[in-house]
């Protein structure tokens, strides 16, 4: 009986949702965050020039949907979406997808993947995005060979108007935590800082990581910002105390490990990758392990570990493949047992969890 009741509720919710779809102006119907794609995760497919499935969806029930966005929005094609899909990020109700070549951000309903709008002003090779309150922040390469011209596009999520904010440094990865925005100032060996953006003032605070130490990934955990860098000799993990905006620790990795990237912190354990191998160590460890937990097989020389995430006791790996055909993603247990293999679209580059 309880089950029946729940089913009825679900049916009702779905009915409401469809009603609300048919009538976009009807804002009065408030529905629970539910929809076809409410429980599971997206694998963003970078796409290169092919212009195929934007994202692959893997439901909590294990069901894989190859092209949810294309299925829901049947009139979509690449002339709307652009290619080189760099990043996907969310606010409470919306999902945003950045097209690097299209200089645009696509806005979808986070749970149904219905298209809402496109923001296409104030971008120049956009890279990554995050949301604080009513604003989205998107980094831009601008001229790839010049670091100083990089900027952040600020999107007002109420009316989708945009403004820009110069970063005066390379602007690549971006994230937000507790109302502040963090920008990793580095790509391909140039830039060696982290910038903190305060949305209330749009003021920027830069924290220097030392010449050559180019950040490639970062995580915030309990008032500390952890930044993984590489300087062509060795990698290093920086710990920044966000109360003082100061580097309080620097753990140098043995040069033998090589180029470490893809920093993830989950339950006080640090994960990172080198080539096709996944490493882990306790947070605050001073010794860096030289043996990986596991490695995976890849014949992609350019797309090894193209996407990486650790979430809820599972390690997620996306293999870029040859960038001109469908590729593969894997789910591993924390001790390196292969749990699941998923066929993705072209050039899968990141995981985005929807729940």
């Amino acid at each position, binding site marked *: 009986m309880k089950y029946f009741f729940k089913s009825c509720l679900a049916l009702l919710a779905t009915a409401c949702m469809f009603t609300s779809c048919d009538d976009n102006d009807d804002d009065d119907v408030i529905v629970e965050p539910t929809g076809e794609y409410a429980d599971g995760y997206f694998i963003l497919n970078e796409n290169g*020039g*092919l*212009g*195929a499935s934007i994202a692959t969806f893997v439901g909590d029930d294990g069901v894989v949907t190859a092209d949810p966005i294309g299925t829901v929005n049947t009139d979509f*094609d*690449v*002339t*709307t*979406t*652009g*290619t080189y899909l760099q990043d996907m990020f969310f606010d409470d109700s919306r999902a945003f997808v950045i*097209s690097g*070549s*299209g*200089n*645009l951000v696509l806005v979808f309903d986070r749970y149904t993947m219905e298209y809402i709008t496109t923001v*296409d002003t104030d*971008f*120049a*090779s956009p890279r990554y995005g995050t949301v604080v309150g009513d604003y989205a922040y998107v980094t831009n390469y601008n*001229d790839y060979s010049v670091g100083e011209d990089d900027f952040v596009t600020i999107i007002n999520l109420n009316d989708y108007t945009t403004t820009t904010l110069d970063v005066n440094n390379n602007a690549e990865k971006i994230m937000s935590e507790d109302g502040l925005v963090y920008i990793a100032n580095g790509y391909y060996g140039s830039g060696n800082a982290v910038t903190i953006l305060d949305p209330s003032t749009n003021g920027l605070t830069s924290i220097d990581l030392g010449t050559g130490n180019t950040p490639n990934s970062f995580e915030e955990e309990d008032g500390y910002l952890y930044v993984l860098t590489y300087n062509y000799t060795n990698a290093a993990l920086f710990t920044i105390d966000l109360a003082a905006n100061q580097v309080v620790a620097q753990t140098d990795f043995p040069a033998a490990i090589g180029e470490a990237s893809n920093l993830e912190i989950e339950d006080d354990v640090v994960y990172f990758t080198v080539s096709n191998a996944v490493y882990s160590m306790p947070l605050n460890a001073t010794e860096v392990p030289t043996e990986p937990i596991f490695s995976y097989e890849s014949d992609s*020389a*350019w797309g090894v570990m193209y996407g990486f995430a650790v979430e809820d006791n599972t390690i997620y790996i996306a293999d870029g493949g*040859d960038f*001109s*055909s*469908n590729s593969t993603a894997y789910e591993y247990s924390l001790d390196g047992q292969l749990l699941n293999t998923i066929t993705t679209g*072209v050039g899968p580059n990141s995981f985005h969890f929807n729940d």
Partner: protein
Amino acid sequence: MKQFYLFISFISCLACKLQAQDTIPLAEVEVSDTQLKRFSDTQQTIELSDSISIKNQASLTSLLNFNSFIYFKQNGLGMVSSPSFRGTTAQQTAVLWNGININSQFNGQTDFNTINIRNFDAVEVRSGGGSVLFGSGAIGGSIHLNDYIKFSEGFKNTAFVKYGSFNTIDGSYKSSYSSEKLSLNIALSRVNSDNNYEYVGKDRNNSNGQFYNQSVSANVGYKLNENNLVKFFTYIYDGDRNFSLIVPTETRTSYSDFNTRNMLEWDGFYGKFISKLKVAYTTEHYKYYANIYNDSYTEGKANSVIGKYDLAYHISDGILLNFVSDINHTNGEGSSIAQNKRTITAFNVMWKHILSNKFLYEVTSRKEFTQNYESPFLFSLGAKYKLLNDYEITLNGSKNFRIPTYNDLFWAGSGNPDLNPETSYQLEFGNHFKLNKVDLSITGYYNDITDMIRWVPQGSVWKPVNTQHVATYGIESKLKYQKKFGKHTMTINGTYTYTKAKDLDSEKELIYVPNHKATGMLQYKYKRLQAYYQYMFVGNVYTDSDNNPLYSLDAYGISNTGLSYHFGRQKGYQIGTEINNLWNVNYQSVRNRFMPGINYAIYMKLKF
């Protein structure tokens, strides 16, 4: 002294006698692409005349797409265009200008949208291997852009202008004067287009696709005497294109080309000997603007000096022995390429023997020498046999190559100086029927290409390596039919090709090679009125290396039609109209690059 006098008299008499005996074939005087005329008996050629080119857009892409075996992929109308001939890559089709190979030193290919056909007297397509004769890249086949030097034709002018949809203006002017001794020709052409066509079935226009190009060519021939002829050819091309956008908000880019080709030639006709000495100087310069609103660009510049000596010895009526020696010195540099020089010297020996009016065979060979890579010995063997009055067979086998380009060898941080040329062995068998009013040719071929150069990731950089092993095979057929009844003339031209191109390691088909392509042209003439219907069918192509049907591009069939009227004295004036993509088909030749729907043009041609 007396002896010397005798000797001179003897020589002069001999010379007179030889001269009297000799009739110099017209082609040897008029055409500089000598080897095309001498050694194409056992392979298929198609000559595309002015009456066909007038019905097409000014680009070489349009002309060949609708009238030859060659398949093209274009990033939208007028944008980067690369051919696939017999299933091969764009670098495996050689383009020759008056016998000189003009494929880019940087990427080894010709962009077929950067050649305006209105400048040339003839465009010829030769299928199959021809590296012995035409050098690097003649694996799938070769395209020949030729100017004719003609004498005793007086003063002639042709003005042509075509105006079409998307504000496209295509104009050319040709003027020639020739006496018995002197021949002067000049040709000017220009095309420009807003190229902002609407995508079929979409609320969007092609954006940032505008382009122009203009060319000047001038050719001079002068007969020093009965035995010696001097020619000079020059051709200058200047083009600028913006590259069209998939999404209107993409960063706008543009590309410009400035190319010059010049050649001085001295032909000597000495009885059984024909001697041709050529010196050519060619330049190419491209600039790529990654953002049209910035002044910064990347570029590549290369100059080549080519010397060629060609001696033909007609041993007897049916036997030709031909030696060619050439030297090619290139000096190139670019934004990502340090200055590099390359010198290639080559020696050819060729033999053709017409045993009877039923049977001939030809043997050709070439060996190149260069410091940059190991160059293979190239050869071809061909035979033609007339089995029946109306049925001939041809057989040809050859070894061909495509040399590494400047980008392959010298690209900063990536170039691989240890590359070898791509090599191909191929065999073809042709059947040629000439029945009453029908000409039909069906040729089967097999092409085994090894050491294909591919750019693959090596650590953090991409490097070219000799890796792929590919087989291409298929059938090429062409049909011509003409019938006259009273004042009516009907002509049908058609081609059909079946092509398979396979990577022999992965067993997958190469991307962008359709299994089927067909072209057809029906022309009907009544008195001064002419009408035509032109059709092209391109089968579906894979666009991903896995041959996933999800990513394949659909087949398309495109029709053009037109009407023209000839008037004035000797029907020298012509006005015409044309409708392209008559059925408004929505098609893409490259994934996500939409081509125009129905569009129109009117033209006028005046000969005086």
